[in-house]
């Protein structure tokens, strides 16, 4: 065999390793950049105090609470509805054209830029329904935004459950509902939960749409109808306006750690679940 393929192979493989290293390097650099500059400024006071002087001093407690409220409520509304819809679409319908159309629609909506949901939420929830700029408007907007994703991922997870499981369940004399809850959902749980957690992560990082529907007020929201400022928005405003770079980095660090922690915990939980039930590879 002529030496050329081997030489080419060496070069290309070296290149590929370089590309891979660069890629991982860049991703780690970004996380490191934020954490290195932000963590030194994160303290217990920072996490439990309210901002002073537009955020130049003080902490980010209201923002943490706001993020938890807006994203949490949004996912709390979307998750049950989304999973129920997925269950209905897979277990209670006969499939076919209508389901395919709905699936396509959900896919499209899952891919729509989030800003469009923000536009919709601003005009519909804040103005038309009269809710104004508040936690509830933000949460409802986020709910509709993540709903398609929850439906699709839940549906994929449920469809992946082998039919044999369903047949055995029926064979043992269960009702459809029993089969769905005790067999199908239990097997599909890792996939469903992953989808919900992914939606939570997406809801937590959403900035523009939440700013337009929940506003950017600095205070701790005392009701669902108060305007509030979520973490990524606070970071954006602090950094953009040059109000305080230290606080900005610190806010970003908190946000990154929260999202990484959520993803990591889910990953570990799923490993345990899958280990127990032995569903997937």
């Amino acid at each position, binding site marked *: 065999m002529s030496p050329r*393929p*081997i030489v*080419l*192979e060496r070069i*290309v*493989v070296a290149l*590929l390793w370089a*590309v*891979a290293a*660069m*890629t*991982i390097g*860049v*991703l780690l650099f*970004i*996380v490191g*950049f*934020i954490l290195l500059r932000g963590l030194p400024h994160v303290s217990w006071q920072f996490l439990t105090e309210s901002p002073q002087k537009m955020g130049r001093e003080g902490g980010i407690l209201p923002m943490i609470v706001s993020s938890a409220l807006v994203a949490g409520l949004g996912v709390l509304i979307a998750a049950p*509805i989304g999973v*129920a*819809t997925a*269950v*209905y*679409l897979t277990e*209670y319908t006969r499939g076919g054209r209508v389901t395919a159309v*709905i699936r*396509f*629609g959900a*896919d*499209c909506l899952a*891919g*729509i*830029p*989030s*800003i*469009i*949901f923000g*536009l*919709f939420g*601003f*005009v519909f929830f804040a103005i038309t329904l009269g809710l104004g700029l508040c936690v509830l408007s933000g949460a409802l907007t986020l709910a*509709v935004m993540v*709903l*398609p994703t929850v439906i699709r991922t839940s549906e994929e997870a449920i469809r992946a459950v082998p039919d044999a499981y369903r047949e055995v369940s029926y064979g043992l004399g269960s009702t*459809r*509902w029993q089969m769905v809850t005790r067999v199908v959902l239990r097997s599909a749980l890792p996939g469903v939960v992953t989808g919900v957690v992914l939606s939570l*992560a997406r809801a937590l*990082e959403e*900035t*523009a749409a939440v700013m*337009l529907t929940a506003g950017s007020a600095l205070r701790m929201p005392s009701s669902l109808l108060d305007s509030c400022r979520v973490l*990524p928005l606070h*970071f954006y405003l602090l950094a*953009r306006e040059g109000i305080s770079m230290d606080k900005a980095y610190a806010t*970003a660090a908190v*946000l*990154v750690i929260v999202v*990484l922690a959520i*993803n990591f915990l889910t*990953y570990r939980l799923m490993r345990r679940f899958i280990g127990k039930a032995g569903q997937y590879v």
Partner: protein
Amino acid sequence: MKQDRIISAILMGLALSAILGLSLIAVFVFKEGVPIVLRIGARDFLLSAEWNPKEGLFGIRSMIVGSAMVTLGAMLIGGTFSLGLALVLTQFAPPRLTHVLKPVIELLAGIPSVVYGFVGVQTLVPFIREHLGGPGLSVLAASIVLGIMVLPTITSISVDALQAVPRSYWEGSIALGATRWQTAHRVMLRAARSGIIAAVILGMGRAVGETMAVIMVGGNTLAVPRGPLDPVRTLTANIALEMGYATGAHREALFATGVTLFVFIMILNTVALAVSRRRSSGAAFR
């Protein structure tokens, strides 16, 4: 059995209201956006580069070109690096390394876009300005930032696609005397092609939809960008910048921009659907 029927009805009610609700959004956006496109004429709306709401001019060509250039750039940069990484992880790296790195990459998918944008403004934009020219806020900056943002997504889906290719393909190719690289790109990539295309399409969808990062590193100029070092305003940035205060025809024009994005995503998803259908029919051959 009666309980089953009640539950079935409840589920149907929930599902229908969810579907209705989601369709409401699509209908709403189209209802608000389509009239103005009809009024101005689709050609003027899409092809005119004059965006001047105060004078009633709503041409979004600058933004369409902007979005297109930025997305293309992001796909070129993000796509090649993701694929390279995916190849290395599945074909050339020891399995234990892959086992550790894959979840790490997936974790990194959760970093908020404003963080990427900010790091880009602090590091990338000055770099481009000082070493490559232009104001730094540019198509290139946006492409790089977006490319990096979609890296985790494209990589992990491509890795899944490559890992799904039967091991026998690899072994057969090597047994025939091919080098690893030849096997990788002539056999494995080809076999995983549809999964990789799906990954790229998904990444493209994410890149098109990104707002905050592009506002921060793009420059938001109204002129049509002529090169990678020119500043740029994307369709999403346009909506985000003007949404807060637009009324009347201006707001309708923003919804129309939303319709444009909607249509584009529908096209993307149709392509993805066609590709995946080809995949399942192709598999029937084996």
